[in-house]
């Protein structure tokens, strides 16, 4: 765990740096894949950039919306660099919608665009695991297995290491096209299904899971749902020989 690096008067947040590297290198993989798949590199770059910027803006606005009176009296706080005043769910939803809107306007082929995003997203997932390792977040439950790590005053499952390892495996599978696909969109579905499977199993070892009723872990229930949707879409997209639709 190494959450901060002091550089003179500045305090560098290492997990944030890991995420930044994830986005940066992830974008490089997306660019390469767009060339490989014959899509316009500039348009794909714009799609990702607009999605990211929109996501950040709406994550801040989403947070501010919960405390309207506070932000009305301090409107400049909307521009604060503090990362503790974001609502990630709002950022994810609106960032995705903005990216879809851009793809729709530019008439990008929907499934092929998803495929192009897969290697970049797979790389980002590795760096997300690294960010968790650096911050000590997403920590494991207490255990006495020989490979446990001492974290937060207990010996715990090294869930962040499981996360990095599985993300590396998924990244390799996606980048090298190790699982053959015929139809556009299948590579993205593979990435999504494999990531959901990884989360499904790692979550069971976590010590900080959000729970639903009767102790069921929220992330596992969501992962199961994603897996069902992915299996359905994968079969559907691979087996049906239909014309590939654009965002429209």
């Amino acid at each position, binding site marked *: 765990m190494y*959450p*901060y690096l*002091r550089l003179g*008067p500045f*305090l560098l*947040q290492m997990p944030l740096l890991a995420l930044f590297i994830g986005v940066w290198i992830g974008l490089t993989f997306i660019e390469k894949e767009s060339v490989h798949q014959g899509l316009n590199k500039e348009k794909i770059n714009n799609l990702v950039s607009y999605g990211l910027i929109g996501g950040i803006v709406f994550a801040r606005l989403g*947070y501010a919306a*919960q*405390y309207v009176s*506070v*932000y009305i*009296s*301090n409107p400049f*706080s909307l521009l*604060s660099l*503090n990362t*503790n*005043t974001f609502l990630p769910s709002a950022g994810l939803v609106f960032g995705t919608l903005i990216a879809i809107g851009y793809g729709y306007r530019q008439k990008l082929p929907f499934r092929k665009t998803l495929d192009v995003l897969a290697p970049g997203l797979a790389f980002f997932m590795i760096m997300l695991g690294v960010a968790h390792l650096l911050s*000590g977040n997403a920590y494991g*439950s*207490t255990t006495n297995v020989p490979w446990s790590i001492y974290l*937060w*005053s*207990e010996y715990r499952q090294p869930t962040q290491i499981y996360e990095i390892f599985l993300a590396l495996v998924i990244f390799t599978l996606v980048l090298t096209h*190790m*699982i*053959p*696909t*015929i139809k556009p969109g*299948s590579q993205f579905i*593979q990435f999504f*299904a494999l990531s959901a*499977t990884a989360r*499904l*199993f790692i*979550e*069971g*070892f976590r*010590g*900080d*899971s959000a*729970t639903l009723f*009767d*102790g*069921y*872990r929220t992330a*596992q*229930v969501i*992962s*199961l749902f994603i*897996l*069902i949707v*992915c*299996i359905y879409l*994968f*079969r559907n997209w*691979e087996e049906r020989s239909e014309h590939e639709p654009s965002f429209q």
Partner: protein
Amino acid sequence: MSTPRFVMWMTWALVLGMIWTVVSRVQPESAQASPGSVAKEGFTAPDFKLGLLDGGTVTLSELKGKVVLVNFWTSWCPPCRKEMPAIESVYRSYKDLGLVVIGLNLTAQDSKQAAASFVQEIGVTFPIALDLDNSVGNLYRVTALPTSFFIDRKGVIRSVIVGGPMSEALVQSKVEELLREGE
């Protein structure tokens, strides 16, 4: 691996995942259900008892039932100085609703006189605790200044803000979130 085989593997993953979801449920007696005492979000705030700048003592565990902001600071740290008026302003607005602020001066790295003079200059009205031997700073793993811990009414740390200065909106939103939970 061919497409049908991939679907078959995913179907197996789904079945095993369903079983694992049931097996790995969080049990009421598990460590997650009753977190230990560590200076980290989601854990119970480690207890401490310290002397105050203007006499008396403060014990964190005695403040259960209130929303507590513990702000680690020193008088020589520029962002600490910059955020103090914002904390004071929020404290004045919310103290009657159950907010307690402890300005925890790391006196081992500062001096009692410098702390007192700064508190007077800003007009701080919340209690200033003196950590003379850095024991609470070490207990809370304070590696950078300022560092603030937002603690809910149950004594659980809900947010940790490392570095600063915190804006008034940030302090106010974190405090409001915790105060609303008690309504």
